[in-house]
């Protein structure tokens, strides 16, 4: 798995109304950014259960990005406020356990911030690259490699 050309795999949970739209705008504006991100679209950052994040790390994601509407701009009025508290607490807890700071990152990106989204991806990717492959919460099968249940990979 690991080699000189190791590239991290990063999961991004993006809210549909702001950050996902911002990512779309980066696309229509042809702003280039690293290709490590795999986006999971959720209606609201408030939909993101901490379990989504931990499951991603277990599954072998080297990093997780969570992004929603800027505070006060939530499509669902206050969803991102609820999310903000959860994430503040979760991030603090994860780092307390000794998980590398930066494995799990958060940002606010609005629908008009295509360029900002690209920059966020760049920063997050660079940070996670610097951390190297994630090992701490990865669920290893007896064989030692990431367990792939049903889905063959290329």
């Amino acid at each position, binding site marked *: 798995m690991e080699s000189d050309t190791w590239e991290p795999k990063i999961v991004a949970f993006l809210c549909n109304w702001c950050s996902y739209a911002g990512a779309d705008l980066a696309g229509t504006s042809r702003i280039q950014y690293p290709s490590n991100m795999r986006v999971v679209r959720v209606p609201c950052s408030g939909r993101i259960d*901490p*379990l989504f994040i*931990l*499951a991603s790390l*277990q599954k072998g994601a080297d990093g997780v*990005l969570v992004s929603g509407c800027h*505070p*006060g701009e939530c499509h669902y009025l*206050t969803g991102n*406020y*609820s999310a*903000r*508290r*959860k*994430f*503040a*607490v*979760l*991030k*603090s*807890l*994860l*780092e*307390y*356990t*000794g*998980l*590398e*700071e930066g494995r799990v*990152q*958060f*940002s*606010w990106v609005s629908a008009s911030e295509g360029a*900002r989204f690209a*920059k*966020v991806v*760049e*920063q*997050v990717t660079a940070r996670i690259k610097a951390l190297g492959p994630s090992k*701490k*919460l*990865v*669920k*290893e099968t007896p064989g030692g490699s990431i367990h792939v249940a049903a889905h063959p990979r290329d």
Partner: protein
Amino acid sequence: MSQLTREIREAARKLLRAGQVQVVIGFERGSLPMRSRPCFVRCEEDVDRLVWDGFCETDVARYLPKRKEKAAIVAKGCDSRALVELIKENQVVRDQVVIIGVACKGMIDGSRIEAKMGRGSIVEDDETGEKLILKGADSEEVLDRREFLHVRCKACTHPVPALYDLLVGQPGAEAPKDGFSDVEEFGALDQEARWVYLRDEMSKCIRCYACRNACPLCYCPECFVDGSQPQWVGKSTNLADTMVFHLIRAFHLAGRCVGCGACEHACPVGVDIRKLNRKLQKDMKDLFSHEAGLSLEEVCPLATFRADDPGPPMVDP
């Protein structure tokens, strides 16, 4: 018989006699020394089974949820805090419970006494004031109970119940302030050292869920670890699974955990479970000025928000 025991019995008797409650939940002497155990008193005759000493450790609040009859409960500081949370979370109806609050002087850590005196050497214990008299087969030792308190009790910031209908015992001198020095010390350790410590702790876990079962606030009909669709956490004792179990359990208790220590007390293999809970207790206080179990009005921080809340550090290019 201690003054406290007398007062508790008196209160229990009155409540039962007046028909105000159908059951009084308190403690009785256990079959072994230094092991008082919960008991359910339903008639006046049984009232004298009730005792109060330094070994009434079990968190009795967990006996209240889903109880149909009207109950009185003998509650220490931590029990009452758990009760507050349970009432707020609709698990206990306030009107259905009479709280006999006990101004708690802390529970004695039996294991420390055993460490000093030798395991199984004690056949009887007796408490008067701060004196703890321990009788062996052919010996008697008088100790100062204060030296043998649980660490959490020594540091207890709210020994007097936060919520009660009648209070027995005298509130002691001012309780210590919790500076969370333990959390700060651990947090100051090197990241890898923290990871290694927790990894080693969690590696001991046998996934028996005793912690969860003992916790007064773990009352979910189905715990996230038990679900199958999805099966968030594997059932095996894989370290990553164990880690996720404890992290999420702690997270689920954030802003709710009253620090009673029941989990740790219940753990058969001595996992330092409260390491994570303590951190969250501190964060709740630092971030949202919240302490669990003190007020019926205050909403759990993770069930509310403010527009000017602090957020996690953000990527902000």
